[in-house]
């Protein structure tokens, strides 16, 4: 039974690849349907090949505006969460102080809370304070839920860092500021970058918390949500495909650069 044996040995590989296909199938559909020319308002059925949407990606009213709002919020939320989260991570790893346990729980809980609960409770706060819902309330909410992820990512990196490296820097005439800038920060950088990247992705793609606290401001995910009711323009697929391609290209180039660098060095 050579075939059965062959299958047995590759069962994991086959199952894994099937899962991968399941994960990628929607992206394939999104890409294919970005070249569709749908009949009617919804882009769910294949009709005719067309590059019209690619030629005019901002041809739908308000879509590119919402995209720009989402990008702005994502950038500011990333900066805010990364700065605050990195500070917390350093404090947690490097210092002993009271209320450690409470602070750890406060950082863990937002990650263990369904989004809808955070969204609803934050809305209650804003309503009680009489805050004007919009750009700023979205930004506040995004920094809040990104913070914990940054802390986790940076903490892991700083914890695995040899404390002797900083001692060595101080021993080699670097003062506290120099030590931080020349040694601590560069070594913690991959963790900080991972936290920042995650923040950006989480913020840019967030729908539930944003939906509760946006008021009349429309981010890109909210635009997509609305269009699911009103009619889905093909341009949505164009944006989705473009973002996918940009992400893959970005990662591939950075990998190629690191590879080449290490090859040159070796």
């Amino acid at each position, binding site marked *: 039974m050579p075939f059965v044996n062959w299958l047995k040995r590759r069962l994991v590989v086959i199952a894994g690849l099937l899962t991968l296909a399941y994960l990628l199938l929607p992206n394939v559909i999104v890409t294919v349907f970005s070249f569709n020319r749908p009949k009617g308002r919804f882009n769910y059925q294949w009709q005719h090949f067309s590059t019209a949407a690619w030629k005019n990606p901002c041809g739908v009213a308000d879509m590119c505006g919402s995209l720009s709002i989402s990008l702005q919020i994502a950038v500011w939320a990333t900066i805010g969460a990364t700065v605050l989260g990195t500070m917390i991570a350093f404090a947690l790893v490097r210092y002993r102080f009271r209320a450690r346990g409470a602070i750890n729980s406060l950082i863990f809980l937002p990650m263990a809370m369904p989004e809808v609960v955070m969204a609803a409770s934050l809305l209650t706060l804003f309503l009680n304070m009489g805050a004007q819902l919009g750009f700023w309330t979205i930004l506040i909410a995004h920094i809040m839920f990104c913070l914990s992820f940054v802390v986790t990512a940076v903490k892991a990196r700083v914890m695995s860092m*040899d404390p*002797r*490296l900083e*001692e*060595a*820097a*101080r*021993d*080699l*005439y*670097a*003062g506290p500021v*120099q*030590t931080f800038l*020349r*040694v601590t920060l*560069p*070594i913690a*950088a991959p963790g900080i970058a991972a936290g920042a990247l995650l923040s950006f992705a989480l913020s840019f793609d967030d729908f539930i918390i944003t939906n509760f606290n946006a008021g009349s401001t429309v981010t890109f995910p909210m635009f997509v949500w609305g269009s699911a009711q009103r009619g889905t323009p093909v341009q949505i697929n164009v944006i989705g495909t473009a973002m996918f391609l940009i992400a893959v290209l970005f990662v591939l180039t950075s990998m190629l650069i690191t590879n080449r660098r290490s090859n040159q*060095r*070796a």
Partner: protein
Amino acid sequence: MTTTDNSGDVRLSGIGKTYGSFTAVHPLDLTVPQGSFFALLGASGCGKTTTLRMIAGLEEPSSGTVHLGDQDVTHLPPYKRPVNTVFQSYALFPHLDIFENVAFGLRRRGIKSVKKQVEDMLELVQLGEQARKKPHQLSGGQQQRVAVARALINHPKVLLLDEPLGALDLKLRRQMQLELKRIQTEVGITFIHVTHDQEEAMTMADTVAVMNAGRVEQLGSPTDLYENPQTTFVANFLGTSNLIEAEVDTRSGGDIVLKAGGGKLVLPEARCSAPATAGGKVLVGIRPEKISLTHADDAGAIPEGRNRLTGRIVDASFIGVSTQYVVESPVCDELAVYVQNVERDGRLVPGADVVLHWSPAHTFGLDAAQDIDAGVETVEEEAA
């Protein structure tokens, strides 16, 4: 490098360190003269690394002062002390290449043209080719040399070495010991070397301080420490010692006569670090290689005036240059005897009755109030 300059002297006065109720280092006084190669030797947790870190400024002493030459540096942060450290496991900056690692100290002090100095330094440690590699691309021995170069390039008054060879394999360690010794002789900088390896301390250092439980047990040249240990810890930690409990009988001239088992042993008064009053107890020590073994049948041929004990061989292991015997005797269960394999006596096999004898001049006396097994390496310590 002949100099009468004393700016490289390290003087510790009453320096101590406590963490809460735990005393890591008891207040100690120590002077390391300019240009010497000084070793702090002890098992892990004895306070040697803490002492070193207090000199480097990485640890704030709880009491006492640190002087470099005439300057009090006790409260100076590490980056203001003219002292550099070679860290255990090297602590090379992983994000910088070898060149930048070595240049780090110079750059921090605002020196602009570092190229020539760094290149010369890398030549000295034979790493000129590797300048643009990252630390993780080098072998352990190469990383170790980078760590030395990175510290030495700053012309420190004192170079501190914290177990610098601990991560290397045995052969490389021997090689690096000689290498470090060569560099020290060449540059003439004061080296303070922390190690748990007694052989390493003895081969490299001019002066060794043996530390135990936060105290300096004994300080001296390697030969002095080995030949004339003053505590059971030093006797056992540096090499192997046979320690026999004995009672003081009489004194005659410069010698103390002791009773052990049925026989008498002679100990020069100068070599006894314990107060010897008649009837008091003293530990008699003798190094295994100082003892000669004679088969009981030939006992008559042993010259007069030597200390002797009778016993029976329990075990014999052939090491190559020597044979190591374990001898059971009425005064001690296990006496170690190392005999050079010059003319081997075929009768010296386990079970044979023998006489152990040695020159009284090689005997040393210790205070019997101490733990007789202090400093004996056990299996767990080896593993740790």
